[in-house]
Each structure stands twice: as structure tokens, then as C-alpha cells.
């Protein structure tokens, strides 16, 4: 019985972990290409969820329209954001970019409920909600969908960065902007492209997380889980985002299963951060991250 309980926790941890990595991928793509840190990733997801909820609940259009609207909305939003806010901050200290995205997060959390209303809306994926029983595992279809989407993005991004011409150019931009410029790469266009990719990931993440949690301002709280994921996996690694997500998902589920009875709840939100602090002390650049060498 005991090992079945453990397996159940691990199984759910894997699924929820993949859903975390779905959000973390957006963060990693932006950081990898532009060195910008997006503290508003959770709010991106919230915005996408609000878009899809607006389409599905308020206009009562079918699911695929909602997905398309969310993707288009998020892509144009992140294009505009890069243009208006982040481009003027190029070359400024890292604190400035962090604060700008924190400010952006505040704007989105303020405007979201003002425009879309404060109540929680539920959206549903066309996958049913009958849990799938597989041996000791009990799996939610929403989570399976999220995990599959995350894996699809993992495959897509891996191919994009390793094989496609644009992906190689983007890696060049990430490595050294000046040299990339000298090689005839339009750096600013690739910055915009990276933000657009983050927008697409966030759009799908928003639909999936919105379907799981219900759409309101609290969806943005999943953004707080992005940091343990990316620190563990490595800030600039696509694979790292997925592995980090799996670790965080499994650890928080095990903590919830075994520690909660001892400390009286809440260890789910606590354990990933302790793990992250340890990771920062031991290996700050993460499992798959690239170590940065600093010179005067």
C-alpha cells in the first residue's frame, strides 16, 4: 500500500511538473535569446487564460477559437511589450529589467480584473473530466493534456534551436549580440521573435492552467513556481526547464503527501523553494545551464 501511495504521488508529480515546465519554457526562451528576465510569466499565463475565458464564456465560441484567439492575443501582446518596454531598457542594469517586468505584472494583475471582471470563470478542454486509472495511477485528463503540450513544445523547441536556420541565428544572438550583428543577423527581430515564442507557450499554458484552476487573477500565482523550475534546470536550457519541472512537481507532491501531516499543510509551496535555495548554493547555474565566466 505504501509504495502504491508513493507511486501515485510521483505519477501526479510528473504530470504537474510537465505543466510547470510548460510555463517555464516561455521564461527560458526569452532568457536564452535576450538575457531578459520575465517576472511576469505567471501574469502572461493569466492573461492568456483571461483571453480564452472571454472567448469561451462571454462569447460562447468553441474551444479551438479560444486557443487561436489566445495565441494571437499573446503574440501581439508580447510583440508590443518588447517594442515599448524592453527595447528602451537594453544595456541597462539587470535590476531595471527585473523591476520593469514586476511593474508589468502589477499592471496585468490590476487591469485583468478591471476589464474581464473579478469573478472566477471555468473553461473546459474537450477531453472530458473522467480521471484515467492506470494501475496505481489516477490521472486527470487536463493534466495529461498539459503534459503532452509541454512535451510537444520540448520537441519543437529542441528541433528549432538545433536544426532550423532561425534557431541557430537565435542561439548566435544569445551567445554574443555584437558578433551576431556583424554576421548580418537582425538582432532586434530575433528579440521580438523570442518574445512571440514566449507568448505562444504562455497562451497554451494559460488555456491548460485556466481549465485546471478556473480563470481568475489567482492563475498568475503559478508564475511563482517558475523560478524553482528554471533555477534547478538551468536558466538557458530547454531540456533543463522540463527536467526542473519534473523535479519540482515530484518533490512538491512527495512533500504534500509525507510532510503535510507533520507540519499542518502548505509544504507544497514551501518545499520547491528550499530545494531551490540549496541549488543556488551548490550549483547556481542549474543542472543543464551554461556557466557564465565574468571578466572585468
Amino acid at each position: 500500500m505504501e509504495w502504491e501511495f508513493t507511486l501515485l504521488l510521483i505519477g501526479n508529480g510528473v504530470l504537474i511538473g510537465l505543466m510547470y515546465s510548460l510555463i517555464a519554457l516561455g521564461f527560458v526562451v526569452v532568457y536564452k535569446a535576450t538575457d531578459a528576465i520575465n517576472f511576469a510569466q505567471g501574469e502572461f499565463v493569466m492573461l492568456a487564460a483571461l483571453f480564452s475565458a472571454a472567448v469561451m464564456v462571454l462569447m460562447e465560441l468553441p474551444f479551438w477559437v479560444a486557443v487561436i484567439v489566445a495565441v494571437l492575443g499573446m503574440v501581439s501582446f508580447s510583440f508590443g511589450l518588447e517594442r515599448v518596454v524592453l527595447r528602451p531598457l537594453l544595456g541597462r542594469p539587470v535590476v531595471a529589467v527585473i523591476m520593469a517586468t514586476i511593474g508589468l505584472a502589477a499592471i496585468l494583475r490590476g487591469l485583468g480584473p478591471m476589464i474581464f471582471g473579478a469573478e472566477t470563470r471555468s473553461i473546459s478542454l474537450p477531453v472530458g473530466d473522467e480521471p484515467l486509472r492506470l494501475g496505481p495511477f489516477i490521472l486527470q485528463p487536463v493534466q495529461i493534456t498539459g503534459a503532452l503540450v509541454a512535451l510537444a513544445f520540448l520537441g519543437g523547441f529542441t528541433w528549432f534551436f538545433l536544426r532550423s536556420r532561425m534557431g541557430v541565428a537565435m542561439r548566435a544572438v544569445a551567445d554574443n549580440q555584437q558578433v551576431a550583428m556583424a554576421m548580418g543577423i537582425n538582432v532586434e527581430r530575433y528579440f521580438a521573435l523570442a518574445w512571440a515564442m514566449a507568448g505562444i507557450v504562455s497562451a497554451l499554458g494559460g488555456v491548460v492552467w485556466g481549465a485546471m484552476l478556473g480563470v481568475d487573477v489567482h492563475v498568475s500565482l503559478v508564475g511563482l513556481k517558475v523560478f524553482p523550475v528554471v533555477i534547478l534546470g538551468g536558466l538557458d536550457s530547454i531540456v533543463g526547464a522540463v527536467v526542473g519541472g519534473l523535479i519540482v512537481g515530484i518533490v512538491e507532491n512527495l512533500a504534500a503527501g509525507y510532510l503535510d501531516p507533520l507540519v499542518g499543510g502548505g509544504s507544497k509551496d514551501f518545499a520547491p523553494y528550499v530545494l531551490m535555495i540549496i541549488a543556488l548554493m551548490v550549483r547556481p547555474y542549474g543542472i543543464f545551464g551554461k556557466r557564465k565566466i565574468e571578466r572585468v
Partner: protein
Amino acid sequence: MFHRESGYYKTTYAEDGALYPLPIAKWTVGILLALFVVLPPLTTAVTGALAAEYYISIVNLILIAVVGAIGLNILVGYTGQISIGHAGFMSVGAYTAANLAVKLDLPFWITLPAGGLMAAAIGAVVGIPSLRIKGLYLAIATLAAQLIIEWIINHTPAISGGSQASIEVDRPAVFGYPLKTQRELYYFLLLFAVLAIVGALNIVRSRIGRAFVAIRDQDIAAEIIGINIFRYKLTAFAISSFYAGVTGVLYTYYLGIANYENFLISTSIDYLAMIIIGGLGSVLGAIFGAIFVTLLPILIRLFMETFGTLFFTTAELNNIIPAMRLGIFGLLIIVFLVLEPEGLNRLWRNIRSYFRVWPFSY
């Protein structure tokens, strides 16, 4: 501050580092201080006791925010180490003082430094990773510290005092006389705000402050010219957290209750907004920022309650006002970052340099 500087050139380092750049500056500061001392009776005379109580309570909030903003500015503005966990240090100070005041019945002149020192100790521990990590990593580590402190306080009844994690505290008593009204509390808070300002001015113009600035501008170069980076980074964290702890204690005495809900991440972000809007790396900027950010929500509420009722019902307004506050807040942070990175302090300096030779053009 308000005087015009003209025909005065600094020729020695001692002059450059002096607390008062000009003899007249002593007069300006003295007059300003005198104005602050007579503010409560003046307000009472103009508006009546009840309204004065309200206005002075707002000034009190500003005085508390000034202490916290100056402390955070020492860390972020002067040393260049970001912290998104400052509200966590404030809650450490608040709960330390509240526990000492309630369980051991200690007076404020023990609980206040104790709260500050406890926060400084915790802050120094949180600062340890800053030796290896910086920028984004440090931001995330301090964010984690904020969440972990919050969680620990919330889950340890010995600290948080049981139900709803709040401890009621009596108002501070000076020589056995409890400060009951806001106007009496004002002098108590003013004293600490002035101490904080003078302390910070003296830190940043001394050896320590110069080491902080060197670390901010280029840490590897600073190490090569003989600054012990580890020690000074931890000092910055400790001093800054001490200020934060004192802010938490003052806020607890102001409210009469220690509650972790007053020290969530949003509070950390409020304080970061203060120093960015006010101006990074400047004591005066931190004061401007504290005034601005404290007044902003009050003004928004006033504005919306006056004009918003034309368009919205009261229930809608209750939803809109906090959301609007958050939105305007974020917008201001971005606008200042993009358009005026040196904040209100820079605008103030521009005004001053315009009037320096006024009405002549050169």
C-alpha cells in the same frame, strides 16, 4: 536643500564628503526640522483635532515608509544587490518586537533595536548567497527568502501567536506615558525617521558607503583595489535589513498589531517601487519615493470616490480601486524606468540647477 548654491567650489575631499555642503545648509535643515516639529499643532489649529488626527496618520505612514525605503536604497541603490524579500525582514522585526513586548513586557527602546538586530541577522544569512550569485539569481533567492519567512511565521504558533497569526501590541510608552493619539505617535516616528536619515547619510559618505558604491559599479574591480566584497555585501544586507526590521517594528506600533499580511511580497514591491520612482542611490530620492508611493493610493481613492461615483456603483468601486491602484503602480514603475531612470530625485536636481543661476542664463 532649498538654498541656492553659487560661487562655492569644493577643493578638499573633506569638503566633498561633508554632511552639510554649505554653511547655509544647516539653516535649511534646521528650519525644515522646526517645521516638522510644529506640524501637528499647526494642523490641529487649521483643521480641527479630528481631521488633524487623520492627516497626521498619513504623515506617520510616510515617516515609516521613509525608514524602510532608505534601508532598501542602501542595499539596492548603493550596493547594487537586489532584494525582493524586504517585507520578509520587516515581518521578522515586527514579530520579534511584538513577542518581546507582549511576552516579556519590554518597552519600545529594547524591542525596537531587538527587532532591527534580529532582522539584520536574518538578512545577513539571506545575503550569504550574494557572494556567489548576483542579479537575477539574487533576486530569486531573496524572493524565496520572503516566501520561506512568511511560511515559517505562519506555521509556527510560538512566533505568530496562534489564531490568524497576529499579535496585538500596546502603543509605545515614553517615560510611562503611552502615546495614544496619532499626533503623539508622530513625534515618536519622526525621531526614528530623522535618525534613519542621518544614519544613512553618514553611512554613504563614509568608507563603508564608498565601498558599497565601488561594489555596485564593478565588483571585480572593487575586490582588486582591496575591498573585501563578502564582508561589505553582508554589511549592506545587515544594515538594510536592520532598517527593514525597524520599519516593521514601527509599523507594528503604529497599527497596534503585528500581522504577516502587512508584509507580503506586494509590500516588498511597494518599497522597490519607492526607490525606483524616487531615485536609486540617493537618500533624498528614497524620501521622495516614500512620500509619493504612500500618497498615491490615498489620492486614487479620494479621486475615485469623488468622481468615480458618477460612473460606478459603490460595490464596483470597491473592486476597481485596488485594481486601479495596482495598475497605476506598475505603469509608474515602467514609465520611470524607461523615461527617467534616476527618478524624482533627478527631476528635483534639474529644477535646482535651473534656478542656480536664475534669472541669468549663465
